[in-house]
């Protein structure tokens, strides 16, 4: 249990590829920090540098006051849970969990007792004598956890520990891991590509792309105030809709957002809370609309009529509590830079838009409908730097 400081960590591979650039983060004591990013963004490299499995090219790593750059993995007092669990197939569950203690020459009696304790926490007591090959995916995952918690390390590292589990189990283990972590109070550094996992588990979430840290913030703040276009699109499912647009002042003192063919009224309060926006009047900018800020006008007829767009429903996904609608609007979309999302979109999907309607909507595929836009919740970004426009 200690603070962990990453100071400008950089990883350059011998072939010149720079996997991580100037990664600086501080984890306070007992914090659960999630590092999230698309595949190939360098998040696992970052984790492996902290673990000591990869050399640090430059920068410093501290756990507490100890600089760990040149310390071999075994002396770092860091435990790691691997994506593949990496259990020792020839050992029983008890031997797997007890292995770190055995290496530390803990007396057999204490060892058995501590293994027993860990097994109790993880509900593995009945499997202690089984070999890993006889266990289910979730049980293996817990054995891997057991091996980490049994020695009470200064830091937990978890490398996508849930990605090999099926969806239901993943949701349960998510809660279990978070609960165990907060019980033990061990500082935890958790890597995932799944933004839902990041949002639900992390006290703070660090978003990384191409080896460069984009934003570190608690989940709510990340969602409500994304620092740039990438974070805005990456966090949240379905993703935020992003378009090129422009603002212009109107005679009555308010502002209009020009989004393709549509003119949307923007209330003065939006301008007041984002003073920086004044500079972008009559300039191109990027506007972001969360799917839940769009609603079927037939469901909410009270919404001001100057904050509406109309579109033809192309795909409808009824999820029960809500209904996702996909349609196109005549406005150029903005590429957020998420390599995983690009594959899904393809070239022709300019103007693609996703909305999250309440289940009350009666709209069907092929209907032309009016759609309310909650302009108070719009997100604005600079078109060249892709940074959020706020102050």
């Amino acid at each position: 249990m200690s603070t962990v400081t990453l100071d400008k960590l950089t990883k350059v591979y011998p072939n010149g590829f720079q996997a991580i650039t100037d990664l600086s983060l501080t984890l306070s004591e007992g914090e659960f920090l999630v590092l999230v990013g698309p595949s190939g963004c360098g998040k696992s490299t970052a984790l492996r540098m902290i673990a000591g499995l990869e050399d640090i090219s430059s920068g410093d790593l501290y756990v507490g006051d100890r600089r760990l750059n040149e310390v071999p993995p075994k002396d770092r007092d860091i435990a790691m849970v691997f994506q593949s669990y990496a259990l020792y197939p020839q050992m029983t569950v008890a031997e797997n969990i007890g292995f770190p203690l055995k290496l530390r020459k803990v007396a057999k009696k204490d060892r058995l007792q501590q293994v027993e304790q860990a097994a109790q926490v993880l509900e593995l007591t009945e499997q202690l004598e089984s070999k890993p090959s006889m266990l289910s995916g979730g049980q293996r995952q817990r054995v891997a956890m057991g091996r980490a918690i049994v020695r009470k390390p200064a830091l937990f590292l978890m490398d996508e520990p849930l990605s090999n589990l099926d969806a239901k189990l993943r949701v349960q283990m998510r809660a279990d891991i978070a609960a165990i972590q907060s019980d033990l109070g061990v500082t935890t550094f958790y890597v995932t590509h799944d933004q839902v996992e990041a949002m639900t588990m992390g006290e703070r979430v660090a978003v990384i792309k191409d080896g460069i840290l984009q934003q570190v913030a608690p989940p709510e703040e990340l969602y409500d105030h994304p620092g740039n276009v990438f974070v805005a699109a990456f966090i949240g499912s379905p993703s935020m809709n992003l378009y090129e647009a422009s603002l212009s002042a109107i005679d009555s003192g308010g502002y209009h957002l020009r989004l393709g063919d549509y003119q949307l009224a923007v209330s003065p309060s939006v301008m007041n809370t984002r003073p920086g926006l004044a500079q972008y009047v009559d300039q191109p900018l990027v506007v972001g609309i969360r799917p839940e800020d769009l609603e079927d006008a037939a469901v909410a007829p009270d919404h001001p009529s100057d904050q509406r767009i109309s579109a033809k429903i192309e795909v409808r996904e009824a999820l029960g509590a809500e209904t996702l609608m996909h349609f196109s609007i005549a406005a150029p979309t903005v590429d957020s830079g998420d390599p995983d999302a690009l594959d899904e979109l393809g070239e022709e999907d300019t103007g693609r838009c996703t909305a999250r309607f309440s289940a009350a909507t009666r709209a069907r595929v092929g209907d032309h409908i009016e759609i309310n836009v909650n302009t108070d919740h719009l997100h604005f970004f600079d078109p060249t730097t892709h940074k959020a426009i706020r102050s």
Partner: protein
Amino acid sequence: MKRTTPLSRFGLHATLAVLVVWSVLPFLWTFQTSIKFTRDVAAKKPVLWGYETTANAYRAFWLDADDVNMWSVLVYILVVAVICAALGQIGRRVRHGWPWFAAVALVIFAALWRFPKIWEANDEYDFLINSIVVTVLTMIISLSIGLLAGYGLARYTGISGAVILIIALGFRALPRTAFVLPYFFGAKEIDDWLTRTGVGSWNFPLIDFPGIDTLQILDTRLAIVLALVAVNQPFTIWMFRSFFMEVPKEIEEAAMMDGATRLQAFRKVIIPMMWPAIIATGLFTMLLAYNEYLFVRVLAPTEWTLPVAIVSLTGGESSRTITEAAAASVSITLPIVVVIILFQKHLVKGLGAGAVKG
């Protein structure tokens, strides 16, 4: 998968039957020869049925002295085997086993030491001992080197690793005969140097082996072992490498995170996962060393192993010893057959790994 018709199935089985007969027939012929009288073997027209059987050939090869009853020897071997099996059972229960290993070693040693008096009378037992020593030493040395090198080459992906592997493969591809003379002359050079400088006849106070006056390499078991290890190494390295490639890197990384050094991770986590590989590779190495003829013949003109001893029986114009040679062939094959039946599963696994990965 294509559907099999009765005709294609028949074709397949017929082919297999022919292949089985083809491979087994020579051995059956040898076995038949070993239990015939010389007159039937020497007959112009092969006597295939209805001949008189005898164990004379086995007796002649293993027991020169007539006063030793062959059955008593068999009983003796059986008793030793039962004791070893019992020790094995105990060893499995007790698990941690150096005392057990020591006990087994002691039993085997005592058994060999107290072996009936034919021990001194009969050269064949010297050859048997030579065979055992050469086989065991070759196995231990090649497996140790192969394990370490295979592990290194599996984990290191640089270009020099690939070069080493290709070179090893090249040496494996060269005919065995190409190596024999260089080894012979190399050993001879060393022996000459030992004699010339007098190092060979130094007296080492603590290692004064009885019966060894001068240090030399040629015509010793050491020469055979060294040569066989060198010849066999490419094979063990490639075998172990393909097995190690299947062990995920995360497992040893996990061990290192758990607090192990790289060596500890190797010893306590990776090696225990490798037992099937060690057994399979060990068996192949054993077969190589146990069956080797050429190297033994050239490098050790008098310190024969069993295959050389057998061939010596088939030499000459006379067919008098041909039944003895056949008997010896059958007897030295039996232990191998037993071992292969015991470890057949691992052997197939080893062949598979070599086929897919190697």
